[in-house]
């Protein structure tokens, strides 16, 4: 991957300056650009979003039910937000150049489940989809609950192109892996220099080759007969060791869930990392429905994940995936059939109004509901 840097935009820099009324908040060494506080009140009317945003004494408040995207009116390298949510809400971050489409849920999907109590969340925009020095941050809130941004800080884009390139390369090299639906097929690539398209594997292989040659040279300098097998082992150790240190300490460890959780219900409720609201709804349905109830799961018309996940987690209850307009429905992989009149309960996730005759008995939000036949 090579990133083509657009020429630095003075208008973007001006927008950053405008948004960043900087009462303190500057951190970092003199050599590094520092985070600057962004006045939330100054953003009033300038955030592009279809959602309802409230600017209150607590900060920026947003009621989320489904997907709520926000496009911030300035360019930055990274953001820090003091944020909390009172329900299962995931924050996805990406960037886009004004007027262009962003793809926040692509292969380099960057996301975090928002904390239930105020905590600082770091969002490195450089490693997210669509970032360029003039791109504006795009935040997408997904789930059910009320989100409060108490404070926002931004790391401005440096004006020096060399510094900018170095910062981008550093960010990409040290970026943790990010779970997505496609992680099972492939991991995000690792670059020594993403801006120049130099793969980390090429550099590590070069270092391993040097170790092999160096080991042979050292044997000869000591007057011993060269042992290519030993030199090969040294090269292999350098290759695997360097790669493992990078991959497991830098890429994997930060993203893994290492908190021992003994309760299976808690794991289902909290550990659907890319869809925390689906996991929470599945856990809610497990607790609300009896084991002999026959269930229909409904998801968004353009998605398969939610309905399947809900049905899977409701086993051994009989569960089918409801398709609008059909009278008989089938379960996962077509296993198990239920007619409309055989269904006792419905778990609906962003699926529009409930079918006639069902009333909500538990809910995460308006569009994440467990319902029973009246």
């Amino acid at each position, binding site marked *: 991957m090579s990133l083509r840097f657009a020429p630095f935009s003075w208008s973007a820099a001006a927008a950053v300056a405008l948004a960043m009324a900087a009462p303190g908040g500057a951190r970092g060494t003199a050599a590094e650009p520092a985070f600057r506080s962004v006045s939330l009140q100054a953003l009033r009317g300038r955030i592009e979003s279809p959602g309802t945003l409230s600017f209150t004494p607590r900060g920026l408040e947003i009621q989320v039910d489904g997907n709520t995207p926000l496009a911030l009116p300035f360019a930055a390298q990274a953001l820090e937000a003091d944020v909390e949510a009172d329900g299962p809400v995931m924050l996805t971050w990406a960037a886009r150049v004004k007027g262009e489409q962003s793809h926040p849920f692509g292969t380099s999907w960057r996301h975090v489940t928002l904390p239930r109590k105020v905590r600082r969340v770091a969002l490195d925009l450089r490693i997210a989809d669509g970032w360029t020095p003039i791109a504006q941050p795009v935040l997408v809130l997904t789930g059910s609950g009320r989100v409060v941004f108490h404070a926002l800080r931004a790391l401005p884009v440096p004006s020096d192109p060399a510094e900018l390139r170095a910062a981008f390369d550093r960010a990409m090299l040290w970026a943790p892996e990010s779970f997505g639906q496609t992680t099972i097929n492939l991991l995000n690539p690792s670059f020594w220099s993403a801006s120049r398209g130099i793969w980390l594997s090429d550099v590590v*292989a070069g270092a*391993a080759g040097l170790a092999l040659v160096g080991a042979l040279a050292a044997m000869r300098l000591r007057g011993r007969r060269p042992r290519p097998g030993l030199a090969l082992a040294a090269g292999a150790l350098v290759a695997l060791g360097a790669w493992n240190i990078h*991959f497991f300490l830098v890429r*994997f460890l930060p993203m893994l*869930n290492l908190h021992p959780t003994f309760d299976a219900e808690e794991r*289902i409720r909290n550990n659907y990392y890319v869809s925390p609201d689906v996991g929470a709804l599945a856990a809610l349905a497990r607790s609300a429905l009896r084991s002999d109830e026959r269930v229909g799961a409904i998801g968004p018309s353009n998605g398969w994940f939610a309905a399947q996940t809900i049905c*899977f987690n409701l*086993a051994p209850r009989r569960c089918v995936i409801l398709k609008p307009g059909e009278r008989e429905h089938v379960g996962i*992989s077509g296993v198990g059939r239920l007619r409309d009149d055989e269904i006792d309960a419905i778990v609906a996730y962003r699926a529009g109004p409930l079918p006639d005759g069902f009333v909500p008995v538990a809910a995460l939000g308006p569009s994440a509901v467990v319902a029973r036949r009246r």
Partner: protein
Amino acid sequence: MTFLLALVLLVAAGLALVRTLRLGTGDRATDAALAWLVGSGWFAAAAPAVRFGAGIPLGRVTAAAIVLAPVVVWSVAWARRGRLESAPAARPDAAPKSKGPVSRWIPRPLWLFAPIALYVALVTVVALLHGINTPTYTDDGVRVRAFAPMLAFDDTWSREARAVFSMAGPLPTFVPALAWIAIGTLDHFHVNYAVLTELVALLVLAIGLGSARGSPERGWASAFGLLSIPLFVYHCTSTYSDAVLAMRIGGGLLFALEYARTRDRGDASRALLLLGIASLVKREGDLVAAAPAAVLVAQLAWERRGGSAFPWRAVGLLAAPVLLAAVGKIAAVGVASAFPMLGFVVQQAAVAARETGGRDPGVSARAATLFFDRALFRSGNQGMIYWVLVGAIVVRARALPRSTHLWPLLAVGALFTEVAISSIVLIPEFTLDQSTVHRALLVASVPAALWLAAALTDAAAARPAQR
């Protein structure tokens, strides 16, 4: 944790089988890991034969009968032998052929192997914690891989359910369901525990075998190599079966490497039995396991030229789980659907042959680039394994034809060729669109890592005159 019940039962069944078949290695840790691999394989092969072949519902009694059958057989055999030979206790079935005195668990020099052991321990613990914590991610619009064991628990096999079983394979279908059947309740995380048990079993097998055979360096290097494949470690924390198949093949290759070194027929038998059991994982298990098994059988046939008898018993151990499971699969879905990957390969080969002139050559060219450039060397999904493999083959090119590592390398090569052909020739579109090549490669990468560990530790230990 009810899964512990399944673990104990299957290890007991496996130990009984290992003892009855005289496949024990004489090392407790190695035998315990081998017992899991064999015991779970026994249940996976027998359960569908009983359920679909004999038509007996798989309830608590049936499952107990299947699991306890080897224990009963071994007890009877042991009692008879005990009366005849007055042997008070079991003894190793095959004396370990160590090079010298019993070696240390952590080899020397410590400055090198202590960090390696620490890394192995750290990554294992991390994988266990994350794997246990992470619920099943339903994985595409049609299938949920961890769904098959629920069907085994439910035991009402509709046509659609049988098709799911045929796709998942007997081992991922029946092993996670054993404790559910025994206890009568369903804990979704048993699928995770089953996959993680496979990981621990393979690591214990690698380290224990190396240590027991006088080469703990090889054991730790094997574990280190395995855990140097990032996508493999990630898969171990999921409920997909790609890593399970790779680990089962890896278990077979560990004993194939030992056989190449020791020429102990017992190791060849263990290798072939584990490869036979590997064929019970996923729809492609039989095809994948066939490649290294064919190489090992060819090696045995080649060595027959020296006048030794062909080890039919070892080949029988390969065939037994395959045939037993085939009975169940054919009874479940019919001959035409029992081996779906075989049919798929034949169908795709016909398509590839028909479209030789018509298919966009760019598709195959891009698939080849993706395979040989990105997937093997650059994307990092397989770590640095293929860089080191190529380096090892180049540096050891002169020594390899005479070395004990040649036949196992051919087995790795056969696996690699299978994956390459399926990715580039048979289903290049799928390889490109879904990037499935990375996880398809795990069945070659895991054996490659084990081969490298053996080849490099032997090469490093070799004195200059021995090269």
